[in-house]
């Protein structure tokens, strides 16, 4: 019985992992289905607005491309994610997208929008600037007008007018997606055998490329299947992953070799996307107003101003809540906001007695063998310690 359920879970997970492994195929499928697709830059975009305009939001988080064409615009010390985005844009990887929404969460991203206009003229960009002083009430007004501008811009590219009703519907669709994603995060943690670290990442990543309705349906079935499989954690060590994103896959594939599973994540690319919901009608205000509240409510992210610096506290809470013994920080090379947060949470974790392993990653690194010694030493440190 468990065997069949496990096979079913693996099959469902693989469906999503395959999507994550080949976003280009997902894009082709959307286009073949007559859907308009809009690229969305890191780290947070108002995807509900895109959805309400009748278009498919499609995450653009770099890739394994080496910088060749993009060196015309970006020095070597630009982060690999943004180099890859520009490279992809310049080399036709994103062809077929109707437009891209760029963001301004860090100094690099601000420049990328400016570079994009020149480097990828065929693919129009719509800048979305999220305010940083999010606790100031004026931030909500600012966001609302930013959403309105975005809706208007999408309209120019064939998007439907974003009505209140449509936006409410989209908010519901995304609410369902986020709820299932959170359920999956818990279920995957209990089943490191069926869903090892790299599979967990692939399942969550697929959300960026699929219609949320389709994605949520498969994910819910996967969650149901996982719910029937007994706990697989025995003898394994839970860790919390933090950082911008846990790529390349080769790094995640090292973790099971040393008995590690992902008990929870604090990655911008993963749980930040589904950690906070759009508040319900009881919060008051229009759909757009409540969508703005979600942006204001997300905390503990390196790319969003947080005068209380809740990140360290969050990590400690995550470890406690999910039985994780340690934290692995995936340090994306040249990601300043992440590099600024590291010393502080590293001090807080040390004070809490939680071991921390920083690993420096770049999306286009040749492999992760260079990181093997670190991961292995870390496992030995926990084992022999």
């Amino acid at each position, binding site marked *: 019985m468990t065997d069949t359920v496990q096979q079913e879970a693996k099959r469902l997970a693989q469906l999503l992992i395959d999507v994550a492994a080949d976003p280009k195929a997902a894009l082709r499928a959307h286009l073949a289905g007559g859907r308009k697709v809009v690229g969305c830059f890191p780290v947070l975009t108002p995807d509900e607005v895109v959805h309400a305009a009748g278009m498919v939001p499609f995450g653009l988080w770099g890739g394994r491309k080496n910088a060749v064409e993009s060196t015309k615009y970006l020095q070597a010390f630009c982060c690999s994610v943004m180099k890859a985005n520009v490279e992809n844009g310049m080399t036709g990887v994103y062809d077929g997208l109707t437009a891209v929404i760029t963001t301004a969460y860090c100094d690099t991203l601000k420049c990328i929008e400016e570079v994009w206009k020149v480097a990828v003229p065929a693919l129009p960009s719509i800048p979305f600037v999220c305010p940083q002083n999010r606790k100031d009430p004026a931030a909500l007004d600012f966001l609302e007008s930013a959403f309105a501008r975005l809706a208007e811009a999408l309209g120019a590219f064939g998007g439907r007018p974003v009505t209140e009703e449509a936006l409410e519907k989209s908010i519901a669709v995304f609410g369902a997606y986020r709820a299932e994603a959170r359920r999956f995060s818990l279920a995957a943690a209990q089943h490191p055998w069926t869903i090892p670290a790299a599979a967990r990442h692939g399942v969550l990543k697929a959300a960026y490329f699929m219609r949320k309705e389709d994605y949520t349906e498969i994910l819910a079935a996967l969650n149901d299947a996982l719910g029937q499989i007994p706990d697989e954690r025995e003898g394994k060590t839970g860790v919390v992953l933090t950082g911008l994103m846990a790529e390349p896959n080769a790094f995640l594939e090292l973790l099971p070799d040393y008995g590690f599973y992902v008990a929870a994540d604090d990655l911008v690319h993963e749980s930040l996307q589904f950690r906070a919901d759009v508040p319900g009608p009881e919060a008051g205000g229009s759909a757009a107003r409540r969508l703005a509240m979600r942006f204001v409510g997300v905390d503990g992210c390196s790319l969003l101003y947080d005068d209380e610096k809740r990140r360290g506290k969050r990590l400690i809470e995550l470890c406690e809540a999910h039985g994780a013994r340690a934290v692995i920080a995936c340090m994306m*090379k040249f990601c300043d906001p992440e590099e600024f947060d590291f010393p502080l949470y590293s001090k807080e974790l040390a004070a809490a007695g939680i*071991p921390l392993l920083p690993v*420096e990653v770049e999306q286009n690194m040749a492999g992760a063998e*260079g990181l093997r*010694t*670190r991961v*292995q*030493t870390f496992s*030995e*440190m926990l084992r*022999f*310690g």
Partner: protein
Amino acid sequence: MKYLGVDIGSSASKAVIVDNEGVVVARWLKHTGVGVATDVIETVLAETGTEASEIACTVATGYGRKLVPGADEEIAELSCHAKGARALVPKTRTIIDIGGQDAKAISLDGYGRIQSFAMNDKCAAGTGRFLEVMAHVLGVGTDALPDLAAASGTDIRISNTCTVFAESEVISQLAGGGSKADIAKGIHASVAERIAGLAKRVDIVPVVCMTGGSANNSALAACIGKELGAEIVVPEWPQMAGALGAALYARAIL
């Protein structure tokens, strides 16, 4: 019975055999690293006059630890250096290991368990490779660097840490008439500064022990000690610390 530890590094391979009491009964060293033949265990046994049947357990470590068929287990070099250093210098709390490709700093608790560690990233600054490149620019072998530095009165500071930039800085110092001895001293200071930067990311508690082949470079050890404000203890056979740790793990495992 006896226990074998094999340490396949990036530029040299080392082996140590210990007896039931953990006493070293044989040492073996070859100046070939990961390219060493797959029958390295047989070679070690033959060259140390050991019968295969005498070895109860073998642990492989080092950069090429996965390339040792016949090993019972593989353990990362940091764990092995920690164990080896503690055996050589019992009160060790901090270990600095400069290898050909990377540099490591390890902090141990009072029981010799690893508390934290730091390794340099891809950058060659502060590694054996950096010294090699700079020695080449000066037209000497890496081994000759310490003696050259010892002859210097004042060091010429090499401020760049990027190997490519530092190389051009050394060249322009030479072109500007700087003495090789002073530059060599500056090169040591530069590496020491990088290593100290790395080491400060872990807790530096005495005794600070330096392992790895570069520990034999007394000029470098002295510079690092100065940067850290701590005395650096270099054990006999520092490059054997990893293999020794591996052998001791082999003994403990069984």
